[in-house]
């Protein structure tokens, strides 16, 4: 055979077999693709299938474990997915909500409150490192950029590598940095320091409090989080009317550190908030991690100290705690526990601008657009508009009252009727 003929000797084979041989060669790439697809599909399935076999433990023992946890040094990667079911307006609306985002030109892009607001939607990868109460670092990993919040002794630095801008605050910002650093998960770590109670007492108190706010607390099996064995602590509201289905906290079996926090809505579907470690290491992070000096040419915005202190924690922490806590005039909380509803009066055109609120600052078109986002409801209280997300619903009545809570639409209407 001449060497430039095809590699198979097809001269003697008939057409059919030649075709078969041609086809047979294509089996190789298909097989490679198939094996890869199978691997991609199967490996995660296999990895998650085996829940660790841990000794049984009661809810109280588990809470004691959390309270007794003295994890001070850790570093790891956290993935946070938030799906509040808000309509996607992109960053424009988020920026508008976040103080210091758009209108306050004086603050740089490295201002923490604006940046942390972004975490309220979508999926983000975070890195955290902590070494005792004086050194913490939180980094938000962006595409080819990173936003770091560093607390080291008296200094709080925020560094945005995309714009090469830094933000500096003296110890005054500490409360804010601490809180944002811990997020929702780490709250348990702070508690033992703040409460004089022993872990056991704390667990009892916590369970009692849960009982009072009609929460069922139980340990529901185990899970693997970031390659570590963990118990799943499940909190469920007993009341109907709450939009919160359940809250699951995965607690590390060895150290008692909460590793994963999941908030599922009552309506089913994917979790509203899902934050958990994908990698965690309880070793001491390298000291250089917390060392930040702005390089020459980095634009540094100095925080003047006073005005940051009060406002910051509200925006940096959990998604809606700050919303409630910001305290416009006339805030009134109806009910308690899971189904509590905040009632507030709209002062003039502030807050949520709707046509219903009779605001003259909002153009008619914008008001109409806002109306189209909500549902019109009527009741004994008159009429109003309900704005829905997957977790929080808000009723804005035509006479300028707002009812907000993690409750269903019916519960809001009921509360509004009762308030009349």
């Amino acid at each position, binding site marked *: 055979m001449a060497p430039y003929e095809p590699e198979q000797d097809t001269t003697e084979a008939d057409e059919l077999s030649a075709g078969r041989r041609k086809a047979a060669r294509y089996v*190789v790439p298909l097989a490679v693709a198939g094996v890869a697809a199978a691997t991609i599909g199967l490996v995660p399935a296999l990895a998650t299938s085996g829940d660790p076999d841990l000794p049984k433990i009661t809810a109280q023992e588990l809470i004691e474990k959390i309270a007794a946890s003295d994890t001070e040094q850790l570093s790891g990667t956290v993935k946070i997915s938030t799906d509040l079911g808000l309509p996607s307006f992109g960053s424009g609306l988020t920026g508008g909500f976040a103080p210091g985002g758009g209108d306050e030109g004086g603050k740089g892009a490295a201002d923490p409150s604006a940046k942390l607001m972004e975490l309220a939607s979508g999926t983000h990868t975070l890195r955290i490192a902590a070494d005792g109460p004086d050194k913490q670092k939180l980094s938000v990993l962006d595409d*080819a950029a990173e936003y770091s919040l560093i607390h080291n002794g008296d200094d709080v630095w925020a560094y945005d*590598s995309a714009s090469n801008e830094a933000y500096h605050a003296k110890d005054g910002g500490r409360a804010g940095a601490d809180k944002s650093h811990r997020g929702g998960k780490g709250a348990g770590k702070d508690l033992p320091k703040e409460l004089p109670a022993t872990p056991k007492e704390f667990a009892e108190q916590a369970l009692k409090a849960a009982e009072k706010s009609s929460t069922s607390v139980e340990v529901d099996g185990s899970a693997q989080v970031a390659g570590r064995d963990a118990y799943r602590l499940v909190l469920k509201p007993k009341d109907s009317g709450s939009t919160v289905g359940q809250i699951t906290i995965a607690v590390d079996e060895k150290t008692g550190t909460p590793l994963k926090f999941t908030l599922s809505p009552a309506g089913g579907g994917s979790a509203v908030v899902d934050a958990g470690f994908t990698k965690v290491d309880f070793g001491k992070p390298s000291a250089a991690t917390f060392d930040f000096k702005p390089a020459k040419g980095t634009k540094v915005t100095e925080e003047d100290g006073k005005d940051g202190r009060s406002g910051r924690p509200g925006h940096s922490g959990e998604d809606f705690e700050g919303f409630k806590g910001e305290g416009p005039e006339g805030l009134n909380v109806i009910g308690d526990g899971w189904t509590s509803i905040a009632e507030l009066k709209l002062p003039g055109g502030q807050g949520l601008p709707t046509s219903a609120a009779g605001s003259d600052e909002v153009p008619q078109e914008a008001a109409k657009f806002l109306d189209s986002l909500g549902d019109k409801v009527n009741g004994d209280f008159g009429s109003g508009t309900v704005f829905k997300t997957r977790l929080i619903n808000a009723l804005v009545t035509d006479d300028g009252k707002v009812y907000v809570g993690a409750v269903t639409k019916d519960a809001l209407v009921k509360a509004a009727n009762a308030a009349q």
Partner: protein
Amino acid sequence: MSRAEVTAGAAGASGADGVRAATAATAKETDTGHPAGPGSPPRPVRLAWTLGLLRSELSITFRRWRTLALLAVLAAVPVLVGIAVKIETGDGGSVGGGGPDGGGGPAFIAQVTNNGLFLVFTALAATLPFFLPMAIGVVAGDAIAGEASAGTLRYLLVAPAGRTRLLLVKYATALTFCLVATLVVAASALAVGALLFPLGEVTTISGTRISFSDGLLRALLIALVVAASLIGVSALGLFVSTMTSSGIAAMATTVGLLITVQILDQIPQLHAIHPYLFSHYWLSFADLMRDPVYWDDLVKNLGLQALYAGVFGSAAWARFGVKDIAS
């Protein structure tokens, strides 16, 4: 042993450029149909042959005006970026400080003024989405189809290169070009950066500091990762190249596929397929500038490139092995 093998072996050993001439010369004789048996020559000869063929391929590829022009264009990108940044920040302003989202432009551009080393990263981030893969697409797409359209493919095969070996040599050439092209961009950027901007301690994007030599090492690693990111495109280009005997068509198809994939990667509704697009994790090379390095996406990127190389490489083999070579 046929005459072709002897001549080719000699050519391979004596010098790369002889191969084409020798094969062309022997082609006529072999055309008449020597009953070349499957007698395999000893292994060292084969290895020498392969190396000779590879050397010949490399010298032909890198001596082409087209290749040199591509490399020159790539080398010009960092120069342009560097000068633009220098001019814009000449009055003390900073790049990208204006916008609320930290400004546009390629990654790392805000840091270039403080440290010229960042120009390497900026240049790679600027060229990776399009310039680099386009150059690779031209070289890889031309690999087989170019020979076919120039009428030299059959002569290459007449020399007992074997189709699989020829394909491997062509792929190796394309990969070498990936590496050379990336290093050209990086080296040009480093030179421009050193000329126009200060060098010194490097601030990683995590805010920590590393020494300049560490920074250089990371820059080299990044260049290697960027070169490795192009493995998928070159395999795709090679496969396309075996489908047609028109070099231009193969290049155009490869570059067209590249653009299509990049567009698909931008459409949020198609997020389900994004992780399987070869360009999806390209910018993960920036993760090497984090401290500590964030490996997840880098590993995904390299795995994906290996997958593309496996699938399209073997598809090219399947296609090329049984193809009728008419030119």
